[in-house]
């Protein structure tokens, strides 16, 4: 077992790959948060009056709220006056064509393996790239436009499609929903907007890539996806950040709105900087994600692979309002070294015959703590509803922790709820079995972990599944040994 722990340690001590910074000239707000800062952000973005009012309302609610403390995570008090709330890479205001994007920025994303030059992309994936607080480029806009699909930065949506933004902004996550959502609503600077018209099946994966670059900066982006009746969209977000000694706050909001027969598939590969081996630095990832199955037979599916961040506080949820609507949550959360994750989902069954499915796979290594927190709430009128939950935890080594907090609340007698949970350790026997077949320890751990997470990884779009597999192996590299 000693050897086992050694391999575990090695695999879990692999350094963060995306820890570099680039020298991008930035246009920043002064530190701290006040009504003036909110106005500053709004005016920087030349926003209409109604949006400024909305932000100010959110800010005032936030001032009256207290930071939630119920999650199973520990961190020092955050000084909200010590954060820069707006940072934009300096470039000619709003590039319209990729040729106008700062070459340094294009290089930044190429370093991340994301090409913003459309002809270079072999696969049909449209990308919106967000650096610090603003969106810098969106690809394949014209092609999507032919089908009536709108995919652009949030700022652009506010300018070009104000009626849609006004109608749906805050319709799923109200501005005063919770502490971090309120904060986001006050200071959000950019993000992605996506609208799929009636009956359109979006022909390519849409994806947003987030990168925090500037120091002392918080990132507060907002994503809003609206799927009209009978439409379909698959969406993916990825994120990385430089290695910095201080903690950085990331408080995003994602809202999904699915009409009758519409389907939204939302996948996340979260790889924010997790802090160093001793727990110094890293991103605080406090995110509110919620989808509303507004119409009958609609479906929202969340898939997340969480490998980064010092602290993750995130519960992608579904409100199943339409009859026969369906919500899914597939999650792999890996924590290593001193990372802490408190993540899970909330399935609220309102409509009749609604169904939800939860598959959560936690992997804890090093000295990390990994919690699953989930709620299944079946309301009185949600008759004949069903839920299936499976929460598995895998422990590597003997210094980490895995916790499960399931809440189940059923208000009628015709619904069916199933909950399964397991906890296991990567066995010495499993590793020895692999070794005896010529597979070295690192490859063995990667194989076992990927096998364990397979049910979730298989939900990801094909090429991202491969990426995610590599990322899992990388995150755990050095953790057996």
């Amino acid at each position: 077992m000693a050897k086992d722990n050694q391999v575990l340690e090695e695999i879990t001590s692999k350094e963060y790959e995306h820890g570099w910074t680039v020298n991008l000239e930035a246009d920043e707000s002064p530190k701290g948060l006040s009504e003036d800062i909110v106005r500053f952000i709004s005016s920087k973005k030349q926003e209409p009056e109604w949006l400024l009012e909305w932000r100010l309302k959110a800010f005032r609610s936030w001032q009256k709220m207290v930071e939630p403390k119920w999650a199973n995570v520990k961190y020092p008090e955050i000084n909200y006056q010590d954060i820069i709330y707006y940072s934009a890479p300096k470039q000619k205001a709003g590039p319209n064509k990729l040729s106008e994007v700062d070459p340094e920025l294009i290089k930044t994303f190429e370093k991340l393996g994301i090409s913003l030059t459309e002809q270079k992309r072999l696969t049909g994936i449209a990308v919106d790239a967000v650096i610090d607080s603003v969106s810098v480029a969106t690809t394949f806009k014209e092609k999507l436009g032919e089908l009536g699909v709108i995919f652009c930065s949030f700022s652009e949506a506010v300018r070009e499609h104000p009626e849609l933004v006004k109608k749906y902004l805050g319709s799923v996550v109200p501005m005063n929903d919770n502490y971090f959502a309120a904060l986001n609503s006050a200071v959000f600077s950019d993000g992605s907007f996506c609208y799929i018209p009636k009956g359109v099946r979006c022909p390519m994966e849409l994806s947003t890539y987030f990168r925090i670059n500037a120091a002392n900066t918080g990132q507060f982006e907002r994503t809003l996806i609206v799927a009209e009746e009978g439409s379909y969209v698959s969406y993916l977000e990825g994120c990385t950040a430089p290695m910095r000694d201080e903690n950085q706050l990331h408080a995003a909001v994602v809202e999904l709105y699915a009409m009758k027969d519409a389907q939204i598939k939302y996948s996340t590969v979260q790889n924010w900087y997790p802090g160093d081996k001793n727990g110094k630095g890293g991103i605080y990832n406090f995110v509110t994600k919620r989808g509303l199955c507004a119409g009958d037979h609609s479906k929202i599916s969340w898939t997340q692979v969480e490998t980064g961040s010092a602290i993750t506080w995130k519960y992608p949820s579904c409100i199943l309002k339409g009859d026969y609507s369906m919500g899914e949550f597939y999650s792999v959360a890996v924590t290593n070294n001193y990372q802490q994750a408190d993540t899970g989902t909330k399935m609220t069954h309102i409509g009749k015959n609604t169904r939800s499915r939860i598959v959560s796979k936690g992997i804890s290594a090093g000295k990390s703590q990994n919690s699953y927190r989930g709620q299944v709430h079946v309301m009185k009128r949600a008759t004949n509803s069903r839920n299936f939950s499976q929460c598995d935890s895998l422990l590597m080594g003997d210094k980490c922790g895995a916790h499960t907090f399931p809440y189940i609340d059923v208000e009628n007698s015709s619904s069916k709820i199933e909950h399964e949970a397991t906890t296991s350790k990567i066995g010495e026997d499993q590793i020895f079995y692999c070794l005896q077949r010529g597979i070295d320890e690192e490859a063995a751990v990667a194989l076992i972990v990927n096998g364990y997470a397979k049910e979730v990884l298989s939900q990801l779009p094909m090429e991202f599944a491969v990426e995610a597999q590599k990322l899992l192996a990388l995150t755990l590299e050095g953790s057996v040994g």
Partner: protein
Amino acid sequence: MLTIKNLKAKVEDKLILNGINLQVNAGEIHAIMGPNGSGKSTLASVLAGREDYEVTEGEVQFLGKNLLELDPDVRACEGIFLAFQYPVEIPGVSTVNFMKTALNKIREYRGQPSLDAVAFLQLMKEKMKLVEIDQSLLSRSLNEGFSGGEKKRNEIFQMAMLEPKLSILDETDSGLDIDALRIVANGVNKLRSKNNATIVVTHYQRLLEHIVPDFVHVLYKGKIVKSGGKELALELEAKGYDWIKNEMELV
């Protein structure tokens, strides 16, 4: 091929192997028999490089190399294969995927290029016939929900895929019905060549009716106390292990 000299090994503070001497040449099949707790499985594990055992004395040469200095995965790459008595389950990893990873690791060690999907599949089909195993079994998670017989057959399938120089079958017959036993034994016999060798660890003579050994060794209290030809196994079967025990007590 394999030379074991005065091998002693302990687990925690208990001496389990107490001076084993054994010579195995290419083309030979050796059976190691003995009562429960005599050290048979320990010998198999020590040869494969399991960490739980500490070798305190002796040496093991395998194809001119000091085996005890090699890590378990390197031993496997050098051509040692252990068919486990209790094969472990690896959820979510199919036998196909597992074998592809293993085979390509071994090929990499030997400086050979990786097999592509087509070549791998072809090889797999060929070996499947040899051990009468169904493809649907190989697509399932490794050993998960397999019957005892399926697990053992899967071990022999893996052996066929990796083409080891020295195979060690650790109580492969335990828990097998007569049909499964025949299939497993047939597989082993078909894989036999003048270039490889097999060590069959077993409690009963039954398996040796199907896999005919060139030599039989009886292990007792961590030592080989009797060696002979295949007839020794029959004698053991007739007289029982008490015969060995009594003989040893007299000495």
